[in-house]
């Protein structure tokens, strides 16, 4: 199906998309003028605007068949109110209670017409977009057609499949990461190309393949003399930076920190007893590192001694290696300088809380590594302007960890709120609802 849904600025239509053009259009949306316009014209404009957002990928005839004038709604009941009265108090007298209830809460209206496009929320492609698994409904539709979506464990290739309450749908996590992740910069793209070229070259010989695997994990023996405690301290400060929730830290800066952190962790790992730890998988590396850290915390003094011993051994062996690697990130190098000046740092300074932060940073690093073979920028970070569109309606229960969601029930209206996510107010949705009624207003 040809995509006619452009995000043009002149038309200013709003789409189910996370594009910045769409965000700008959303921000400048105003209710259409009603003065000097016939009722028919008002309804026409309203339905055109509404349909540009709700199911523009659905043909008009198809939508007309789906439309239902009956709107689902619920009233939240208070059990103590129900227990206090069997209904006869309210119906007493002339049918509205003997005296006016003083406690009466301000009753909110049920915004029924905000639910005009509710049947479209049942569609599989729309539900995938609502679960934040795709950056637009068009993209969600593509995921379905390309076979990346399962419903109840079976591959489903129809974007128009109407979910039933209780249906579990799952999208390939790699696709979700691609759809929601930031795009690569041109430098990252170049690195991807280089990686690909290297892969092609290395396919010839086994030796080259080994070298490649080493390259991929970026494991290089370090020729620097370091104190273990300093390394740990530097690790700590970087971990804090990575895990910090400060908005002043720019994403690029954070990425730089992450790279440095990764290198430092490798350096620590290279010092561990087992020689194969650097070529092992990430899981093994992580467990080894946490094991070393835990041991240090549990028995401080002996651990430090053994650490120093291992350090001296390390420096002996490292002296043979003349290869000097690129400079680590500024935080780390600062720490190294401090160590060179003879400043003594005690590993026991690390509190339990700090260990926890370090652990979390390690986990994050393991989950979110730099990998240029991925189609998105690594380490993964959300794409620009995603947060302005990030919400999950109540009728879906989403598990982002496995990129699966359950369609719990059909969306409902309740006093004061409607569950269908629509950018329009009643000035658009009410005339649009009237347009689709069989006996049109």
């Amino acid at each position, binding site marked *: 199906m040809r995509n006619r849904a452009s995000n043009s*600025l002149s038309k200013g239509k709003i789409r189910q998309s996370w594009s*910045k*053009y769409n*965000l*700008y259009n*959303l*921000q400048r949306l105003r209710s259409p003028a009603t003065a000097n316009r016939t009722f028919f014209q008002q309804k026409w404009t309203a339905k055109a605007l509404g349909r540009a957002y709700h199911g523009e990928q659905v043909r008009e005839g198809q939508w007309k068949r789906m439309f239902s004038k009956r709107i689902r*709604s*619920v*009233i*939240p*009941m208070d*059990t*103590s109110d*129900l*227990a206090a009265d*069997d*209904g*006869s108090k309210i119906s*007493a007298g002339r*049918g509205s209670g003997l005296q006016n209830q003083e406690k009466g809460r301000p009753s909110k209206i049920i915004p029924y017409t*905000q639910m005009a496009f509710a049947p479209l929320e049942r569609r599989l492609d729309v539900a995938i977009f609502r679960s*934040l698994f795709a950056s637009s409904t068009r993209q969600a539709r593509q995921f379905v057609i390309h076979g990346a979506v399962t*419903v*109840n464990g079976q591959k489903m290739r129809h974007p128009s499949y109407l979910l*039933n309450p*209780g*249906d*579990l749908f799952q999208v390939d996590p790699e696709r979700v990461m691609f759809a*929601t992740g930031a795009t690569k910069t041109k430098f990252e793209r170049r690195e991807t190309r280089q990686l690909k070229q290297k892969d092609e070259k290395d396919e010839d010989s086994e030796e080259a393949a080994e070298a490649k695997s080493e390259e991929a994990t970026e494991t290089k023996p370090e020729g620097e003399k370091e104190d273990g405690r300093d390394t740990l301290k530097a690790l700590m400060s970087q971990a804090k930076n990575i895990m910090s929730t400060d*908005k002043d830290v720019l*994403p690029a800066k954070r990425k730089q920190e992450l790279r440095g952190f990764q290198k430092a962790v490798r350096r620590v790992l290279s010092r561990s007893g087992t020689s194969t730890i650097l070529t092992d998988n990430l899981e093994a590396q992580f467990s080894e590192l946490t094991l070393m850290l835990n041991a240090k915390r549990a028995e401080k003094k002996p651990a430090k001694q053994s650490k120093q011993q291992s350090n001296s051994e390390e420096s002996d062996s490292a002296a043979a290696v003349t290869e000097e690697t690129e400079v680590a990130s500024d935080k780390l190098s600062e720490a190294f300088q401090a160590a060179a000046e003879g400043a003594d740092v005690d590993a026991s300074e690390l509190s339990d809380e700090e260990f926890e932060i370090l652990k979390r940073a390690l986990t*994050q690093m393991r*989950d979110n590594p730099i990998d240029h073979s991925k189609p998105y920028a690594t380490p993964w*970070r*959300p794409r*620009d302007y*995603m*947060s*302005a*569109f*990030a*919400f*999950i309606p*109540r009728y879906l*229960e*989403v598990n*982002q*960890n*496995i*990129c699966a969601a*359950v369609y*719990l029930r059909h969306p409902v209206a*309740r006093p004061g*709120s*409607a*569950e269908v*996510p629509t*950018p*329009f107010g009643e000035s658009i949705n009410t005339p649009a609802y009237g347009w689709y009624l069989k006996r049109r207003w």
Partner: protein
Amino acid sequence: MAPRIQSRSVSNLLPYLTSSSSTSSHIPSLCSSSQSSRHFSVTATQQTKLRRQMFEWLATQGAGLKHHTPGDTNYLRMADGSQSNRPFPNNSYFISEPVLSEELRNEVYVRVKEQNKSPRAVSVELGIDMNRIAAVGDPLALPYARAVHEMIPTTPLAQAGERQTYHEPINDLPVHPATGAQIFYPVPESRPFTRIDAGRVFSGAPMLEKKAADKISHPSDLAEDVLQKPSTIEWVGKGEKARQVLQPADVRIPHPQLVQLARDRAAFPEERRAVAQRHAERLERQEKAEKERAARTADRRKRSTETIKPTDSRFAFRIQDAVFTEQTVGKDGRAPWAPGRRYGVPRNDRTRGTVKIPTRVNV
């Protein structure tokens, strides 16, 4: 035919192509630089007013929307400049409601799967809808999940000793279509008119006889009977118009036992332990009845797939799995009497008006 561009001038094109491809990634506010690189364009490429305005907005007011602050929502500001939990400034009825936090989700998982508590009990404890309880699955970590949970509001798990904040209303009463009608129904003032009577009026059933009405002290008395034996619900109307009598809200809400608990508490404020005991017994009976009903439904479904008895028929059809032997499907497996799909025979879904899109996927 118009003369083609000569090869000499084509080679001149190359620097233009390379320069344009490198500048295309620039923010188009620098339109003066792109002007000089276009040798063949007659008019200078001007950025439209709308595009300029958009990039201006993105650089100034919209700049904060580009990245989020972890733990905080980052939606468009309302018309008065205030930040709220409404993602759409024009729609005041749509609220970005909190989702389950990871800890709360794990807690649900632990209580249901490991402590073997019933979904009904966990729903009341944590204030989570029963459908949502059933949907919570196994954990597995990803950076995407962490980022999303930073952007949207979440319901945290209460610390030990604190009271758990309710995630959502759990006693939602669906509005029944029959209640949409406005009915003028005169009732003598001397007679109490309860929710049971209202339901009967809406479904067009005659008023309860006095003897039956006197037996019911409160509409919630019906809840347990209906749950134990749903066939006790009265039917009205004939033929196609036959319908069940609309039950009072006390019966139709997802947690009817809470009404009875509230009544008990009001009636016996001193006997806390006895009230709790009665509530536990009620809950147990309710769960037992639900389990039995589920088993019966499964049994009936199984039987109906094995045997089909059409109405107005003397016959019952027993359905068995197809056996693929030479006798049943022929030597080549394509005998005319063979069951299933056969090469060369068009499938049924090719006939006109047959929709191939499935309407349900069974687990």
